């Protein structure tokens, strides 16, 4: 009997969806807009993350060692730092590499090159570049280095840590990144909620049109599941169709916007992002459409069943 009921409910849902053409069409249009907002939020989120990651990658802290520091000194510091949970990576630049980099950078500056020749020795110390997992963690890394240096009487021959020179810039960047993330989350929640509310009201309106029908169904002794089922099936169909339409419409739009986003948002091409993440986007959009359609229909019918 359950199988028979399920078959009848599904069939009835399909038939009603088709016969209520205008109402179904209106629901689909509103739901496409909702799903479009959700996809835009996915794209905006990925671009924001990419921009913030690029900004974060530009920040690092350099530890300059005195000329008399040995490679062992640098390696001890490197080992200590890598043991810290805040540290994402470290890079050792030897005195020789530092000099080669310096010469490469200033190869067209005759005065600097001449001065280097006159010195006759390498004036540069080794450098350890440290990248934290989050920009907000540089302060604790710098504090750790300072306490280590102070307690050991500069045993490792550290000359300076650039964090203190760049502190203001790093702090400002940290605040921008945190504020952007918070704002992004708030905007996402507001837009998703707004879209869901609008869709819910559209479906509620569509079911309001059928309120007399629901009362007749109640009077002939139809169970709540039997009354509600076809509306939920209709909601699922609206959601699924809207998802397919949204995914199709996104293809030319992202294709057209791809080059612009690549220029503006840290090299992210929205079309390439769409194509390479299509399975995930497909699942999110389809699940959102079907979920919103089913839940909205379920809740909207409940009101008339209770009366």
């Amino acid at each position, binding site marked *: 009997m359950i199988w*028979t009921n399920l078959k009848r409910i599904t069939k009835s849902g399909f038939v009603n969806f088709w*016969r209520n053409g205008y109402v179904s069409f209106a629901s689909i249009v509103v739901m496409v807009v909702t799903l479009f907002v959700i996809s835009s939020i996915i794209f905006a989120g990925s671009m924001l993350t990419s921009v913030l990651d690029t900004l974060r990658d530009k920040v690092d802290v350099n530890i300059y060692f005195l000329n008399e520091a040995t490679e062992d000194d640098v390696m001890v510091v490197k080992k200590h730092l890598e043991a810290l949970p805040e540290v994402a990576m470290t890079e050792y630049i030897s005195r020789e590499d530092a000099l080669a980099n310096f010469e490469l950078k200033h190869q067209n500056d005759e005065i600097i090159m001449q001065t280097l020749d006159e010195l006759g020795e390498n004036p540069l110390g080794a450098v350890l570049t440290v990248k934290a997992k989050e920009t907000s963690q540089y302060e604790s890394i710098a504090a750790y280095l300072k306490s280590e240096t102070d307690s050991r009487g500069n045993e490792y021959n550290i000359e300076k840590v650039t964090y203190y020179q760049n502190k203001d810039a790093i702090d400002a960047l940290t605040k921008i990144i945190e504020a952007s993330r918070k704002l992004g989350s708030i905007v996402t929640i507001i837009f998703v909620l707004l879209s869901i509310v609008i869709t819910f009201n559209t479906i509620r309106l569509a079911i309001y049109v059928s309120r007399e029908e629901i009362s007749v169904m*109640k009077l*002939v002794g139809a169970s*709540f599941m039997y009354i509600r089922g076809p509306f939920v099936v209709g909601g699922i169909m609206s959601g699924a169709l809207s998802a397919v339409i949204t995914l199709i419409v996104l293809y030319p739009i992202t294709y057209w916007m791809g080059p612009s986003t690549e220029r503006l948002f840290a090299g992210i091409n929205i079309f390439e992002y769409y194509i390479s993440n299509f399975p995930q986007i497909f699942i999110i959009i389809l699940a959102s459409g079907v979920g919103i359609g089913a839940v909205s229909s379920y809740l909207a019918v409940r009101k008339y069943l209770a009366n």
Partner: protein
Amino acid sequence: MIYFDNVSKIYNDKSVGLDGVTFKIAPSEFVSVVGHSGAGKTTLLKMILAEDKPSTGKVFFESTNVHRLNPKGVVHYRRKIGTVFQDFRLLPNKTVYENIAFAMEAAGRSDEEIEADVPHVLELVDLKHKMWSFPRQLSGGEKQRVAIARAIVNQPDIIIADEPTGNLDPVNTYDIVQILKKVNDLGTTVILTTHNKGVIDSLERRVITMDKGRIVRDDTEGRYVL
């Protein structure tokens, strides 16, 4: 079969729907309920259908207090009642066949039973040729005959007909009354509300006359006060 025990209904705006109504309806009876608009006829039917609850008093179907039923119980109880309304209340997006089949599906009948019974019941109301029409394609009389077919298809214990001839011309009114009489002759209890004196006179059955929520006359020989 149906027993109203001192039933009153007072609405929130203090208007009186029913005022101390007590009566019994026996199985296989044909009872007409008459009265002016606002006399309480529809409220009385809503009480039987468990669509509305009394402010005081009890309504029994057989030995069951219908307003004590849980939602699932109400669903099963309503399957024992066939309803016919003045405004037909057909499902507009379903064909004639589907409207009747829906009532059978709701009662848990099998596909085979539906395929056999729906054409048969449509033949009884002389609408087999309109089986695949939608309600918008039917006349008022045809719509009402579909509503009656839907009401009787599950062989209910009672048929409740609320002003079924209110929107019909005399010829269709006569047809509908004849169908209801035939249904009653086959053993189904029929409760009919109407304004139509001609209908009541032609029936010559029990008539309950209502006024301002009260029963002012209950006559087994078809006499009434209007």
